[in-house]
């Protein structure tokens, strides 16, 4: 099998070369054009327009009588526009909401399209035109002229987006502003719809009507995870589409078919879409800032930092109450914060590893009393300072009663950005309290049995 893959990817076989190039360019164009549909929150309208292409093509076939890209495109554009128009009419003039209107249009136009293509197939020319293949797509049967067409379409779409990048950007971000600035927003909207139609029609033979939509929407959605820049997003969406097209074609052409199943081999369109879907899943999970894993790690990190800071603050405040006393984390934190014994152990373990706390004796296992190391004392002082600065701010500027501020400050002290803390510190310095301020409310009494002298 690997030999096959290598042979395929190195384009040694003229036939597969055509299919690979065609599918790759289609993915590229769909990713870039689809980005604007996704960003304008028009993914569903794109879906409807793409489905409307099928009856458009069927009608065009009845008029022209053969497989002709120009006629098919015209039919698809007309029906696509009719579909989009119908959706907005229904929305504007009836009580049907937009999602229902889109669902009605998608289903209705698709059903009409299937009927028309069945009718067309019964004529001898229709069978040759391969209209039935437009529903699921048959990339493997792509011929050089199909690929050439896709190349032209992709080139045109990319050129259009490159030239009108700034216009499409302002249209997608803020349509009212663009219109107030004098841009013909309706024409630009129609251009985006037109580009979607062109890519759809060019891609139908390869990927099919149902899945071309996935190719328009999935790569941009995946690309968005990795970047906060529109230009980068377009490049990534194009690259993901290209990769999905090439890889999906390669996999479907070379993966071994289980004996007795899939008499026609692996379907290419679904393989391409599955590759795009895998890229989406990977992006969703692994993207550095917006990804799910990164988010979960960030939350765990924040929770641990808060727990650590709570330990440090408790130790600092206990030491304020009875200087030199040892701190019983189990007793203090379980009582005051309701921590379970295992959580107390975990937090203490992490604090010890960070060199912030230590047991009084070197050979102590660390289940008993603790004291702050030098670094720990510094860290604790700064945590307490942040906490009390925030409390003072709440009391002085937000008119919150002193006995209420502890809880509020407790939530926020861990996440205050340094520049805000600096501002608070300047205010404190101005009022002559530069070091750790005294707590503005009475501290809880040390729990009985906790502390004790060394």
């Amino acid at each position, binding site marked *: 099998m690997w030999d096959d893959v290598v042979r395929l990817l190195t384009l040694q076989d003229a036939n597969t070369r055509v299919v690979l190039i065609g599918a790759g360019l289609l993915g590229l164009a769909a990713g870039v054009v689809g980005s604007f549909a996704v960003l304008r929150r028009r993914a569903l309208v794109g879906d409807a327009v793409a489905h409307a292409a099928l009856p458009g093509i069927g009608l065009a076939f009845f008029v022209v009588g053969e497989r002709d890209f120009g006629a098919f495109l015209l039919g698809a554009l007309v029906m696509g526009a009719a579909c989009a128009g119908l959706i907005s009419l229904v929305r504007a003039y009836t009580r049907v909401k937009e999602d229902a209107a889109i669902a009605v249009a998608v289903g209705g136009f698709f059903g009409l399209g299937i009927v028309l293509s069945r009718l067309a197939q019964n004529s001898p020319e229709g069978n040759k035109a391969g209209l039935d293949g437009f529903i699921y797509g048959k990339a493997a049967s792509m011929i050089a002229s199909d690929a050439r067409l896709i190349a032209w379409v992709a080139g045109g779409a990319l050129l259009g987006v490159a030239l*009108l*990048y700034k216009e499409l*950007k302002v249209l997608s971000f*803020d349509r*009212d*502003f663009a219109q*107030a*600035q*004098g841009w013909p927003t309706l024409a630009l909207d129609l251009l985006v719809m037109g580009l979607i139609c062109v890519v759809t029609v060019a891609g139908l033979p390869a990927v099919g009507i149902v899945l071309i939509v996935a190719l328009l929407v999935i790569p941009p959605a995946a690309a968005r995870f990795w970047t906060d820049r529109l230009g980068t997003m377009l490049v990534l969406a194009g690259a993901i589409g290209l990769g999905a097209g090439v890889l999906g074609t390669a996999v479907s052409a070379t993966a071994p078919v289980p004996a007795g199943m899939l008499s026609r081999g692996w379907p290419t369109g679904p393989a391409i879409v599955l590759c795009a879907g895998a890229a989406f899943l990977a992006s969703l999970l692994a993207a550095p800032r917006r990804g799910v894993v990164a988010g979960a790690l960030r939350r765990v990190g924040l929770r641990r930092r808060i727990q650590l800071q709570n330990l440090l603050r408790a130790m600092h405040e206990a030491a304020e109450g009875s200087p030199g006393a040892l701190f019983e984390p189990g007793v203090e934190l379980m009582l005051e914060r309701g921590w379970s014994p295992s959580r107390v152990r975990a937090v203490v373990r992490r604090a010890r590893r960070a060199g912030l706390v230590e047991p009084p004796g070197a050979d102590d296992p660390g289940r008993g009393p603790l004291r702050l190391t030098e670094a720990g004392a510094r860290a604790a002082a700064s945590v307490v300072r942040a906490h009390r600065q925030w409390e003072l701010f709440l009391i002085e500027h937000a008119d919150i009663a002193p006995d209420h501020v502890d809880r509020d400050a407790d939530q926020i002290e861990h996440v205050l950005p340094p520049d805000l803390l600096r501002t608070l510190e300047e205010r404190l310095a101005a009022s002559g309290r530069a070091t750790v301020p005294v707590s503005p409310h009475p501290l809880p009494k040390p729990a009985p049995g906790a502390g004790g002298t060394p």
Partner: protein
Amino acid sequence: MIIDRSHPGVTTEPAVEVHDCTVAYDRRPVLWDVDLLLPPRRLIAIVGPNGAGKSTLLKAILGLVPLASGKVEVFGKPLRQARHLVGYVPQRESVDWDFPVSALDVVLMGRYGRLGWVRRPGSADRRAAREALEKVGMSACADRQISQLSGGQQQRVFLARALAQDASLYFMDEPFAGVDAATEKAMVTVLRGLREGGRTVVAVHHDLQTVPEYFDHVVLLNMRLVAAGPVGEAFTPANLHKTYGGRLTILDEAAEAVRRARG
């Protein structure tokens, strides 16, 4: 005195002339027969209760919603010929702040109008955009993605985009919404700077208390024009009572009847 042709506001012709405008949403009239002359080189507030049609009036002047009847002129010309003189700050909620652009990108959009088709913003435009960010105190956030800005910062980015437009006449839809007091003061300073430069600002405003302090001229609106004029003359208890003293149920009912009849 040198008359700057790019800022016709230095002449005395009205900045905006709204002539007998009626606007309907969904065939339901929201503004009835508004006649309005707005003078140049003023800070002008549009006030009125919720649903009074304040945003709609701005959008009607800007051609963003169709007029059921009437006409609008900007500096004595149809809007089509005066677009380059007009800047716009939409409501902050009207856009998707998760859009993949930086604050600087958004401000650069203010320059797009003068660039024309296809041309990309160059270094001069970048400089102008950075200066605009500087004026609203947002230089430090230039490269931040816009969702990472606070509400007040987003509002300031919108104001900077309008400054980058370098227009003669600005329409601002609730520029102080969701803005903290310090930011509001800073923004008012910017607006006063615009007035010193001969520009006109028309802003939908919600806080009646600050109207006399911030604005020279006021438009009181509640589905129809209640009063308009210099703050000293028009911003009177009687006019405020007419504007806010309960909705005009007759207009409301009439609008509803129109909608039902045509729907």
